[in-house]
């Protein structure tokens, strides 16, 4: 069983296809792992055991009949609880959606099913993806498998932790300001935010529509590329979906070639406020890439310093509107319906009871930023600065092929440490937010452990829109160099949970 859960998705798929292993065996091994460790990790909000095993059996049958199957057929995948999957509850980590079972399936989830993957269940997240630690989940925090008193990052802490705890071979996340990349950095895993419009948002419960993007999470670069290829591509149900061929991410991950590539180091994303171990591993990674033939160039993106305030106007504005539909009238929680109050009173009582503090904070900020008389000063101004940040990227990409930075200023902090300090929490996304504002593509790859606390550090790679393949080229090159240096994957160093428990 240990061999199965520690195997890569590509290995599992190969063995399932050759019938050395069955998908049912593989699925059961992961379900058993979840049963044994998830009471502590709490990566999952819902485990869809029965249906997962049924899907696995169908895939096995297909393979035994000799039918064509996808490259990840039979491999178990965890789905962030922000996607609809007909028949399974979708809570978005919120009390307000408790008990809601969607009648339809998100495009990303449907593509997993169509490609014969096995959806294990729904993973924990900060409420409506608002947070950087998964502590804002109404259903309790997820713990970091590297150190159980630490956060796994957020909002997609459940997806990242499920990988680091070997509960799933693959996971799907969503990234609005770093919710795939920052948890990847905190857990020593790979997380990719595709180009905005590269993956479908249909069935993804919106946080901020102009920033949200589904993406792959995996334990290694090759697996992430395979998953990326499964979920990406045009979807007519999402008007912001790009109707263009998906870049060859799998080929790029295989080539792992950075010779002659120009890599820009963003001077604004480093220095003061960055942990020494983060800076050290980042610098070493950049040196490694240089040793593989990449040309390293320092690049300035002067407007990146405004990214955080811009983000915290645009995101709350959009989410204040996106979250308006949760009013107790049609689905989910309903409070105060005693036959006495008006519809408005029921809506207010439901929202008061159903939303957590961070969600309310952002709804209030966003409502204010869109109000008549303030719109231009806040939302309007933020959109202008947003375009300046995008222009910084455009100028940088005239000179370099990709940009790099640490994925986050620090390593995983202790559960509870920043929960009462929203600003300190927001700073976790300092490095990742610019790519969401510009709509380009960006990823976090494991760069080693910080010497001071022994916790994972991530290297962020950013590329122009529709150049997602470049991320994989750099990530795979770094991965090869580092695994040969460490004589194995970073996750081989994750403590055995049995010991921690």
């Amino acid at each position: 069983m240990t061999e199965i859960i520690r195997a890569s998705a590509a290995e599992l798929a190969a063995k399932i296809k050759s019938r050395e292993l069955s998908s049912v065996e593989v699925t059961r091994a992961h379900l058993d792992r979840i049963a044994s460790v998830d009471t502590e990790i709490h990566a999952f909000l819902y485990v869809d055991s029965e249906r997962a095993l049924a899907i696995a059996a169908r895939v096995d049958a297909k393979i035994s009949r000799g039918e064509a199957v996808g490259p990840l057929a039979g491999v178990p995948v965890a789905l962030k609880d922000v996607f609809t999957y007909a028949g399974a509850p979708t809570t978005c980590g919120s009390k307000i959606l408790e008990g809601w079972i969607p009648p339809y399936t998100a495009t990303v989830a449907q593509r997993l099913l169509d490609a014969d993957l096995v959806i294990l269940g729904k993973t924990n997240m900060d409420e409506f993806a608002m947070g950087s630690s998964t502590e804002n989940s109404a259903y309790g925090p997820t713990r970091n498998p590297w150190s159980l008193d630490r956060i796994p990052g957020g909002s997609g802490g459940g997806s990242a932790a499920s990988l680091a705890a070997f509960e799933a071979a693959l996971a799907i996340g969503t990234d609005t300001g770093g919710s795939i990349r920052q948890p990847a950095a905190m857990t020593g895993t790979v997380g990719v935010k595709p180009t905005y419009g590269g993956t479908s948002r249909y069935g993804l419960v919106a946080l901020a529509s102009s920033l949200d993007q589904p993406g792959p999470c995996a334990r290694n670069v090759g697996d992430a590329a395979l998953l990326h290829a499964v979920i990406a591509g045009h979807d007519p149900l999402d008007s912001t979906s790009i109707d263009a061929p998906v870049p060859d991410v799998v080929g790029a991950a295989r080539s792992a070639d950075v010779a002659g590539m120009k890599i820009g180091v963003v001077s604004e994303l480093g220095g003061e406020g960055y942990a020494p171990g983060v800076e050290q591993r980042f610098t070493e990674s950049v040196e490694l890439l240089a040793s593989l033939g990449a040309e390293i160039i320092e690049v300035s993106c002067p407007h990146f310093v405004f990214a955080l305030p811009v983000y915290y106007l645009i995101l709350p504005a959009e989410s204040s509107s996106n979250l308006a539909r949760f009013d107790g009238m049609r689905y989910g929680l309903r409070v105060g319906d005693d036959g006495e109050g008006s519809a408005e009173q029921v809506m207010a009582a439901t929202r008061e009871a159903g939303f957590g503090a961070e969600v309310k904070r952002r709804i209030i900020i966003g409502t204010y930023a869109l109000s008549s008389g303030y719109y231009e000063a806040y939302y309007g101004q933020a959109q202008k600065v947003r375009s300046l940040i995008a222009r910084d990227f455009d100028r940088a990409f005239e000179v370099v092929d990709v940009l790099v930075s640490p994925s986050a200023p620090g390593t995983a902090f202790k559960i509870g440490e920043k929960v009462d300090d929203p600003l300190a929490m927001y700073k976790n996304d300092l490095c990742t937010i610019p790519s969401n504002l510009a709509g380009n593509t960006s990823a976090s790859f494991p760069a080693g452990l910080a010497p001071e606390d022994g916790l994972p550090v991530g290297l962020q790679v950013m590329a122009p829109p529709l150049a997602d393949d470049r991320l994989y080229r750099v990530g795979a090159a770094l991965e090869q160099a580092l695994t040969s240096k460490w004589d194995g994957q970073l996750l081989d160093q994750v403590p055995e949970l049995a010991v921690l428990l």
Partner: protein
Amino acid sequence: MTDLAKGVTVLSYEAAVASFDPVLGLEVHVELNTASKMFCGCSTAFGAEPNTQVCPVCLGLPGSLPVVNARAVESAIRIGLALNCSIAQWCRFSRKNYFYPDMPKNYQISQYDEPIAHDGWTEVVLDGETYRIGIERAHMEEDTGKSMHVGGATGRIHGAAYSLLDYNRSGVPLIEIVTKPIEGTGAKAPEVARAYVSMLRDLLRALDVSNVRMEQGSLRCDANVSLRRAPTDPYGTRSETKNVNSLRSVERAIRYEITRQAAVLSDGGRVVQETRHWHEDSGVTTAGRSKETAEDYRYFPEPDLVPIAPSREWVEELRGTLPEPPAARLHRVTGEWGFTDLELRDVINAGALNAIEATVAAGASPQAARKWWLTEVARRANEAGLDLEDAGVTPQQVAEIQSLVENGTINDRLARQVFDGVIDGEGTPAEVVKRRGLAVVSDDGALREAVDAAIAANPEVADKIRAGKVQAAGALIGAVMKSMRGQADAGRVRELVLERLS
């Protein structure tokens, strides 16, 4: 109940418009006749079982996303062009944020500062005079669902025990057409407004973009009315009257508002900026939501949709599909029909132009078509409080009735009963004639018997006629017609009476 009853001053309409100059602004919502909704594939058919034409998108379920109906954009552009508007080179949808249970996302996808069509004009003709109406904008939006308030006395939310929600209408494509302030119409303001909505209805029907059924809500009018002492004064405070669901109501509601506001102002009072509701039955408006604490809709560009940038080639292609402009059409058909100015004015005022044109197209003579629409149909429509075209008779049926008269199957008097039968749903005119046994009796044998009976029953009258007083024949003819229940050709009866008594 009514503000007039409460007020001290009660003015006549004539007194009101003698002292004040009305300024109007009309907002017309048009439901498009696209097969599917604005942002999803659900059917837009009217009258289905509640909540059977819904999907995750128009129910606003978490995670669902809108996709623009290209046909709706095409209709919007054609409407804009027909109203002489400029068509935006690039425009976006916006979200209008407010909470209401029949709006499943608690925001409406609409257009705010970037309408698809803007700055146009159109013309209406009233009593031979042409009024130019400026068009501010025409923009696209989605309709809301419908609330049904149960348990209250009024059907309004106030006092209701509970409310039922039907989302079949949620997401139906709407075009909102907003006029610029309509000034200089004086006492004719209510009639000009009616003529404008009537013209718009004709235009939209000719464009084939909407069913324009006011009673089904596919054409809805909100009327903004304000008064000022003199045409040179700045605009007064306006009220916005909603729920005006027929052409007749447009005229009546505006007339009422002008009279009401004039009474308030004459008393030294202040018109409150508010939404008012029109009550068809009592003929008054009552105060609704006050707009002085105006709701802040927090408009912002809809991030789930991409901008619309209609190519100039497409716009020109659509321009080529426009029907004849209403004013030009009016000029043409009236020339062909040869009506007198007085007849023409009556036709336009009755809103019968379309109906007559269609009836003529179905084979009736223009004079016959005019006669039926302005007498039999108009009387029934007025009694039922309906617009002419909603009275329950189609132009084809009117033409058929006329042809039954012309071929002698029925006479004018029997035709009235055929109208009754058609309106009561008894079938086509021919079927009504058959079912009610209305055909004129042309069997001379039966007529002769009736004539003989009448002569026998009225010997003195018969004697007078024999003596040469032919004008006395009327009494016998009347008796025969009575005994035949009107189903006889009176001319033939007269011939038979005189023949017998000569």
